[in-house]
């Protein structure tokens, strides 16, 4: 990597990191796993003057259960998510998504927090976090605050994080019994961004109706998108083929993909529809298991 020269900082505490962010302002970038930032620096699309490496700050890497919530530290590696027994127990969707993120080498380094904080609708975790209704914890000069996932993504590469914030944790409510989740993306080859990706988590009630559902879409919208109309059509209703087809149709109508080498707008909309159906079926299968 022949990047422009930069100053490297390696704070040992959150407070130290935050004061560095305050000191350097927009000239600084946080280095977490580096798998979004470093390629941009290599291509000189990003040329930060200061890199603040948070990898040596203790307490940012964990996956644990606490009072009905699963907490994932912002610095937790994708490979740790991939192999976590706790996540496997409650959220099979994380097994699906991590296997589709890049390759093992990247997953050993890349972090969940970085994947979200980059604010890229092409990344996979945003859709998943919408489906599971996560909350993002950010720590800034004024302490810690909660950001619901639906308020986290703002615009193209823009999030609710302030320049002096560090994404410290993701909190996910443990769903009731009868819940299943699934994620899939179509990609041209391993490591590619999604042609289209769909994340679903749903809960079945005693009658087999859908009591709750979250659907997130990957890389078919300028900002990460929740398929709200699709959720509405299924929430509290029986999961008939008709209802599912309608949910699929709404999702493909409501997204706003752009044409690129992966395919046309029509193709991507069609793929959103196909994947919504398939992921609902897969989630139902898992909910029943």
């Amino acid at each position: 990597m022949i990047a422009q020269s930069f100053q490297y900082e390696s704070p040992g505490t959150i407070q130290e990191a935050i004061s560095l962010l305050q000191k350097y302002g927009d000239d600084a970038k946080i280095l977490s796993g580096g798998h979004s930032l470093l390629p941009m620096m290599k291509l000189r699309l990003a040329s930060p003057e200061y890199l603040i490496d948070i990898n040596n700050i203790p307490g940012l890497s964990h996956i644990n259960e606490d009072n009905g919530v699963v907490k994932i530290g912002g610095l937790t590696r994708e490979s740790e998510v991939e192999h976590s027994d706790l996540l496997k127990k409650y959220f099979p969707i994380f097994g699906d998504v991590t296997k589709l993120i890049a390759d093992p080498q990247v997953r050993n380094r890349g972090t969940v927090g970085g994947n979200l904080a980059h604010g890229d609708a092409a990344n996979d975790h945003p859709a998943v976090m919408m489906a599971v209704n996560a909350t993002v914890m950010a720590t800034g000069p004024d302490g810690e605050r909660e950001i619901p996932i639906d308020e986290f993504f703002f615009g193209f590469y823009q999030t609710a994080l302030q320049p002096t914030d560090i994404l410290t944790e993701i909190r996910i409510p443990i769903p009731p019994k009868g819940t299943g989740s699934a994620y899939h993306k179509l990609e041209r080859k391993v490591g590619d961004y999604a042609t289209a990706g769909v994340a679903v988590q749903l809960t079945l009630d005693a009658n087999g109706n859908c009591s709750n559902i979250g659907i997130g879409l990957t890389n078919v919208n300028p900002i990460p998108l929740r398929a709200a109309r699709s959720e509405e059509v299924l929430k509290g209703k029986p999961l008939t083929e008709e209802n599912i087809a309608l949910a699929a149709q709404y999702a493909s109508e409501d997204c706003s993909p752009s044409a690129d080498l992966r395919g046309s707008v029509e193709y991507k909309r069609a793929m959103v529809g196909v994947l919504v159906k398939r992921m609902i079926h897969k989630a139902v299968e898992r909910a029943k298991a």
Partner: protein
Amino acid sequence: MIQCKTSKAIGGMGHSLKRKEDDRFIQGKGNYVDDIKLPGMLYMDIVRSPYAYAKILKIDSEAAMKVPGVVAVITGKDLAQYNLHWMPTLMSDTQMVLPTDTVMYQAQEVCAVIATSRYAARDGREAVRVEYEKMKPVIDPYKALDPGAPVLRTDKEGKKDNHIWNWKVGDKEKTDKVFETADVVVKQQMHIPRIHVASIETCGCVADYDKVKHHLTMYMTTQAPHAIRTVIALVAGHVGLSEERIRVVSPDIGGGFGGKVPVYPGYVIAIAVSFLVGKPVKWIEDRTENLQADSFARDYHITAEMAGTKDGKILATRFKVLADHGYTDASANPSKFNTGLFSIATGSYDYGTSFMEADAVYTNKPPGGVAYRCSFRVTEAVHAIERITDRFALAVGKDPAELRMQNFIKKEDFPWKSPTGWTYDSGDYHAGLQKAMDAIDYAGLRKEQAEKRKKGELMGIGISTFTEIVGAGPSKDFDILGIKMFDSAEIRVHPTGKAIARFGTKSQGQGHETTYAQIIAEELGIPAENIQIEEGDTDTAPYGLGTYASRSTPTAGAAAAVAARKLRDKARKIAAYLLEVSEDDLEWEPGKFSVKGAPEKSKTIQEIVFASYTNHPQGMEAGFEAVHYYDPPNLTFPSGAYICVVDVDKETGAINVRRFVAIDDCGHIINPMIVQGQVHGGLTQGIAPAMYEELIYDEDGNILNGTLMDYLVPTAVESPKWETGHTVTPSPHHPIGAKGVGESPTVGAPPAIANAIVDALSPYGITHLDIPITPFKVWKALQEKGVK
């Protein structure tokens, strides 16, 4: 099973010896060009054009010169003072080293920044300001031939169009006549996409000119170090770089695949700068530069036609090619073959006549095209014949396997004269296809397919039965810039019976250090582990044309065998002397001469070699050395039968290659493990253009996928489980009966995959898709046929 004539301890042909070179590679101890660091070395980076066609109004290097560490910015005008701003291509076209006024493609070199570190050079590059005046580029090769198209090569005096050359072969009249009267004629337009070799190591060099000794040492990523030395002498002889003052060293190479045959401008600029400043200059491309600027491969637009009887007998073929060469014809073909060996497109089938014609054009794209793991345009040829054969089978309603069996050249008809003038040396096509069909259970698959089709599921089976043409080549036809395409081996055996052998070729991962040692072990009985192989240093290795086009085994491998046989003849004389018998009374077994009828009286090769230094017969030259320059009497014609099974997801267009059986025939096999490795790699580079890779340009000539994010090189994940096997039909004219294998799988795999996918879609009336066949392309084709 392969029969070995030597013991495992000797490790001659047929043994799966572990690769000698891998010890250093797997321990990170390889020595690549970028590992070379010399005292006082400067670094070069290159400013490249953002536009496909533009006038350069101004190059402002003021800010760049202020970057700490930057020592110079070199432009075309600087090189022009020494007449080093142009260079010839291997096809005797011309190419800019650095432009003086116009850029002809995106990513073309504009000027070079020289600095004391790699980082300063890149910072300097970013600081150079270039003012351009954009011009409307010519991108579409068909439009390039329009009468009103802007003439691109205005540097060529009197050039009035963008046409480069026209080539034809075969009997037009006879062929046209067959087409007029044939029962069935099929025709298909197809594009073999522009692709890139994308070797893991990019290109680069360290040019080290010594002003006191007037000597240049050029460390570079080249597959053909000797030829490069000659080219440098031809290009730079006028500034004092004559050939005895040039040493080219090609150290470990991280993949070549044809992309490291050409001379790129960067090499020449580095030499010029080192010559001017008297310091070593390192230039290493980054990945993006490598993909965007270095020679592409393929990019043939082909109209293929086949005529035959309604019961499936092929009678004739016609091929018309439009070759998009980009800004200059920088192909790496033998000089007399501007379409390479495309005329192998008649294929593995026995019919009387064919006519082929090609036209090449200039466009505002990077120059090429190189022979990417393909013996000079054979991939294009094989795709054309194997696709049109499937279309013909569909048209006459015959199973494609049956139709191929019906039309194959018969084993007993070799050597076989092709309608385009080749003499196929040997082959057994029926046996190869039968073996592949048995391995994959062809009949069972067709049954399964019929059942799936009833349920609306898409499954396809594709066949490719190709004939390769490699080992260029016989000196009467084959040369590059006038140098005949022989290759060489020099063997020196030390007094203790251990050897060093040097070659004019250059491995880039093929395993020469192992396989050449095995050939010599086979012939002399010296254990392969005691034979050191060296290539790539023009000061020490004998002259040769290098490694590409599957030519190393057919040429240098043969040279090794012949040189070793010269030594065996000498050994016989010494053994006769030592054993006090006549030469005729001696019997050879690998590693030993013994007296006929008295096997206890014998001399080992080691004893004989020792005697050649210590006790050789009076009148005989001392020592144990031989050299041979092998001029092949003919090319070799490896073949293969590949069958691919795919399942296609009707809703998404996703393609799953479920099985792939590859039966190769490369004649006698030197090292089965290395051959299998070659086949695995080659098949993966075959699935690449079939399903993933293509360099895509927009109408302004911007490359749309100039990084590995979007130029989709398949990985282990995309690779199906390759099922390999072989038949052995030795080449009758090659000293060890070997044919070469490196390219067969790359050449043979794409049509097998394309045929399988088209077969899957054929119930909906789809008869052709251009490669790469992506899910999106499949989905679109199905939508157009109204499939939901």
